[in-house]
């Protein structure tokens, strides 16, 4: 029973993967924002914020990686909804397969999406002259951390994808959630120059903790408090949203 579910999930993963490869523009769409932000903030505002472009890179790149993660997670919710809108889930549902397999297959494929988008963004960062002091291990850990966060957060957007009416509204909502989280955090600018209220919000914002965690990994402090806080937060997200998503998914007439 369990094995059968895994097998079916993998078949559907293969389908999603083929689909992703055939529509690279979808992946590009999720990357455009982070890349534009990276270039714009570095070369236009970087000097003003940190004195020079080179000084700004270590501040902005962890932020952009987290942005990239959030954006890709948001897109995975939109993709899920688009997929449901095509009616293909109806076919899955009328077949003698595990009900959960299509969702699991989609989530496995999302992990690959995260790996690709993070690698692309990070490569660009290196081209721009960024090289973290932690060396290779630190980079690897930071990237794995980012992929893990993305996977956890994609449960939130999968949930949104299931409850919204159209894929367009999923996209809209994701944007409305992600943008304030990004700007009221330390992702693009240091928080201590913000007005008091915003600074407090920014310090509570989980995005700030994730960005700090990535920064810590880039300077080689693997046992930082920020990493611990972020991981706790991610686990809470999964504990809350995975059952919720599964419940809505199993109940809903897709």
């Amino acid at each position, binding site marked *: 029973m369990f094995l059968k579910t895994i097998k*079916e999930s993998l*078949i*559907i993963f*293969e*389908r999603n993967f*083929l*689909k992703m490869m*055939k*529509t690279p523009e979808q992946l590009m769409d999720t990357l455009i924002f982070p890349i534009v932000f990276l270039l714009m903030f570095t070369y236009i505002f970087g000097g003003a914020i940190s004195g020079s472009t080179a000084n700004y890179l270590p501040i902005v790149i962890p932020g952009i990686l987290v942005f990239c993660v959030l954006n890709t997670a948001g897109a995975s919710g939109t993709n899920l909804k688009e997929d449901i809108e*095509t*009616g*293909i889930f*109806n*076919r*899955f*549902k*009328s*077949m*003698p*397969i595990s009900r959960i397999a299509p969702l699991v297959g989609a989530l496995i494929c999302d992990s690959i999406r995260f790996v690709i988008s993070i690698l692309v963004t990070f490569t660009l960062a290196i081209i721009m002259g960024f090289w973290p002091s932690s060396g290779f291990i630190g980079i690897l850990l930071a990237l794995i951390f980012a992929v893990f966060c993305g996977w956890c957060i994609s449960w939130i957007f999968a949930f949104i994808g299931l409850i919204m009416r159209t894929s367009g509204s999923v996209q809209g909502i994701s944007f409305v959630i992600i943008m304030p989280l990004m700007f009221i955090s330390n992702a693009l600018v240091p928080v201590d120059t913000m007005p008091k209220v915003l600074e407090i919000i920014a310090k509570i914002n989980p995005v700030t903790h994730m960005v700090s965690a990535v920064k810590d990994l880039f300077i080689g402090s693997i046992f930082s408090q920020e990493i611990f806080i972020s991981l706790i937060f991610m686990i809470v997200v999964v504990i809350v949203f995975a059952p919720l998503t599964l419940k809505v998914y199993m109940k809903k*007439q897709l």
Partner: protein
Amino acid sequence: MNAIEMKNISKNFDGLKAIDNLSLDIPENSVFAILGPNGAGKTTVINILSTLLKPDKGTVKILGFDIMKESKKVRELIGLTGQYACVDEALTAKQNLLVFGQLLGLSRKEAKIRGNELLKEFNLEDAANKPIQKFSGGMRRRLDLAVSLIDRPKLIFLDEPTTGLDPRTRNQMWSTIKNLVKKGSTVLLTTQYLEEADQLSDEIVIMDKGKIIAKGTAESLKKEYKAKNLDEVFLKITGDRTDGKNNNYEELTIVKEVV
């Protein structure tokens, strides 16, 4: 044994009675047609029978299995071609057949072989490696049907299988359906073309507003309503409603002329 036994099925959508206390038996190894105007509840019936939708009330047995309690078993026995094509747009015909074949428990190799068989049977060989996005409506429809036939289901649901097809493709679809029955399957189809119901089916029900308003063979219905053809029967029963259905009649006359 009956292929389908529906008893007192009701389904409401936010207060609207889509299906209203419907009971219906469909014998095995036959073609059964559900006719009805837009919004009659045809798709809702098909969705309930194919376990996509839970009825609010009533019971359904498919080949002896309860759709609620034994839904898994039911899904092994049925094939569904929905009103709107459910194939993967980005994938090719071959890839679609491979994915669904494997999901139905075939090995990769078996799924490939079966896929090729079906591509041949449905005249899709030339387009086998084209993404579905580039398919014409008729090809899409045929691939959709091919996918539902991978594991040779005993009971096949076809929701408006020929809507939007040109007369030649429609004729092809008809002979495919006749073949399925010859091989021992039961087919339940919905249609807005009376001609189609007349041509294909052993028995017809006419639905409107969630209820069955007439039932019988094409011949018996014509006799009962003193009509020359099913068009007249349909008009007499459903009344002169003009919510877009006229289009279908026009199309139908054209089809008749061409065929």
